[in-house]
């Protein structure tokens, strides 16, 4: 689709033309972000890719500034973060933007993933696009986990201890792997140093994978709420100004909510225990990860066996890699799948229930609830999706995107 439109652009500015003749960055931008034909029927769920990109850039920008003021040493890390909060000019702002930004990056990405699941954006020919997205999610999780360790509070330390210890569940070599990850025999200064190094490195790898994600996206163009391919120019609009402006509006609204937390409740999404300096001799009553990991934490704890729990937790992400082949329905959008559309919402509720289970201590009815919710999570992907695609009768679909848009306008 990207190749379906006009001759290469002619640049009036001589310098631009000179550069573009040798290095076609201007042609590229023109083709991929200006004239790029985009389905005309996006709803606001399609904002979240752009929003996530903005958050990624914002996290890197604030993170670089923080890194210039942070000290990755077990005796100084906590105080150096407090120094940023107290004495570095506008340090409180940069740090709050970064700390709350991690949560809002995940909010944007989770909604983006929900969009993909609801509208079947992972289906042919966009399987690799989707898989690259899951790779980004995994990299984000690793980055966020290591970033949370850096302030060296109680949850930093004990979160790092619990999560790195998961690898000890691997038979035979597990304990050696954990020692290797720690750089010693406990979570200590070498661990903090390498986590800082990797926390700085991984975001740039995320940028690279995002670039591939965008290349894959532009190969066949975006999916859309109807899940049918554009059939001609009447079904699309140029990316600019139509979607630059619509994304601009979505980003601004997202920023309002984000700013609300940054300025008025910066610690709301965090854990009070992380303002207690790390103490290897005192274990917090409840060790909980950041909210965006809670559903996966619940899956980990739902399985009574350690190795089983670890496998289930990683399996919960792994299953997303093969989602394009688990869903056997040829219809992309849930709009035309009368049964599936309900099960998407059940899955969302299941995910939220898992999150609640992850936040609670594993006792009482939370244990069986997390087990049922975990079972349902895998049931959805491994049983429901393959079967549903075979037995569900999709609703009749409009002939084209333009038809659908114009009919709606007539009504």
């Amino acid at each position: 689709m990207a190749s379906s439109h006009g001759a290469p652009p002619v640049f009036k500015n001589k310098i631009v033309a000179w550069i573009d003749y040798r290095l076609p960055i201007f042609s590229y931008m023109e083709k991929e972000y200006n004239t790029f034909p985009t389905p005309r029927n996006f709803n606001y769920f399609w904002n979240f890719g752009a929003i996530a990109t903005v958050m990624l850039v914002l996290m890197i920008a604030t993170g670089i500034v923080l890194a210039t003021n942070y000290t990755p040493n077990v005796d100084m890390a906590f105080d150096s973060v407090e120094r940023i909060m107290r004495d570095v000019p506008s340090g409180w702002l940069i740090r709050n933007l970064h700390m709350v930004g991690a949560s809002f990056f995940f909010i944007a990405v989770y909604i983006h993933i929900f969009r993909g699941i609801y509208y079947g954006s992972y289906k042919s020919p966009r399987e690799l696009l989707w898989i690259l997205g899951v790779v980004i999610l995994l990299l984000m999780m690793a980055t966020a986990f290591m970033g949370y360790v850096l302030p060296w509070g109680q949850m930093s330390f004990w979160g790092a201890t619990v999560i790195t210890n998961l690898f000890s569940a691997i038979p035979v070599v597990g304990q050696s792997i954990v020692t290797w990850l720690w750089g010693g025999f406990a979570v200590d200064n070498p661990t903090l140093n390498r986590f800082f190094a990797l926390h700085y490195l991984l975001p740039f790898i995320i940028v690279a994978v995002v670039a591939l994600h965008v290349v894959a996206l532009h190969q066949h163009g975006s999916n859309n709420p109807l899940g049918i391919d554009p059939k001609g120019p009447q079904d699309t609009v140029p990316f600019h100004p139509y979607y630059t402006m619509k994304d601009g509006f979505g980003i601004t609204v997202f920023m309002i909510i984000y700013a609300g937390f940054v300025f008025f409740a910066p610690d709301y999404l965090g854990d009070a225990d992380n303002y207690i300096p790390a103490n290897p001799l005192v274990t917090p009553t409840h060790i909980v990860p950041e909210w965006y990991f809670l559903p996966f934490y619940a899956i980990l704890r739902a399985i009574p066996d350690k190795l089983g729990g670890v496998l289930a937790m990683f399996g919960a992400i792994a299953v997303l890699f093969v989602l394009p082949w688990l869903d056997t329905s040829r219809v992309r959008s849930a709009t035309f799948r009368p049964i599936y559309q309900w099960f998407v919402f059940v899955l969302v509720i299941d995910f939220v229930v898992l999150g609640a289970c992850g936040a609670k201590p594993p006792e009482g009815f939370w244990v069986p609830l997390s087990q049922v919710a975990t079972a349902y999570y895998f049931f959805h992907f491994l049983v429901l999706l393959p079967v549903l695609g075979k037995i569900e009768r999709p609703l009749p679909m409009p002939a084209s995107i333009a038809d659908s848009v114009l009919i709606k306008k007539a009504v």
Partner: protein
Amino acid sequence: MRKFFATGAIALAAAVTTSLAFGPAAIAADEPKLPELHWHFEGPFGTYDRAAAQRGYQVYKEVCSACHSMSLLAYRNLMEIGLTENQVKGLIADIQLPDIGDDGAAIERPARLSDHFRKPFANALAAAAANGGKAPPDLSVMIKARDGGPDYVYGLLTGYVDYDALSPDAKAKLNKELDIDPSTFAFGKDDNFNKYFPGHRIAMPPPLSDGKVTYVDGTKATLDQEARDVVEFLAFAADPHLEDRNRVGIRVILFLLVLAGFVYAVKRQIWANKH
């Protein structure tokens, strides 16, 4: 289809709300209900009550600082709660700090504005040894470091009960209220009973009481007043840029709201013939 967007929006809103609700609140669910006070620094327009924070520093200085450090605070920070440079210099005139002299020998010298608060003990081991084996925690970010924040610290300071002196009836009532099982509750003679401290057994004896300090501004020093004042000061200590944050935040949000209005108007204009 519209209906499903609505359902989707509701499901997502529910998802977000639930995760917010279950996040920070989750841990505190089993604890007794904290007193809910109105604090001057609450809300988007909140500021620190300068007079209360200054009185709170006096409480910290005269009572808490005997055991608790506040190592992240410097004396110059006191100028941020409404004291002038000369007033702060007066306040710290009698404070001596350990240092190393030009000849390398250990000395004591008068505190300067740039110095961090004097620590009551030379190191953590000394602090632990003098306090029954456990060092009293640093108070610099205490308000942020406990669920419930200012309400919790106020509750702790005012929540002491002379447990052993209670009549059997009163004790039974308190046990019931706080969900304490008397058969397993090992209340020792070195323990102090606190309604809000997790487990209700706290090593720290009641630090504040009526008339514990004599306020320089003439305010009557009741237990309630002392606790409120020291919490105001500790809140400032934990979050010294709260007022900047609120001021900038309101401007940023107003700016973004106006920007959103303009962007939406332009977007409508551009899309006018495409819907």
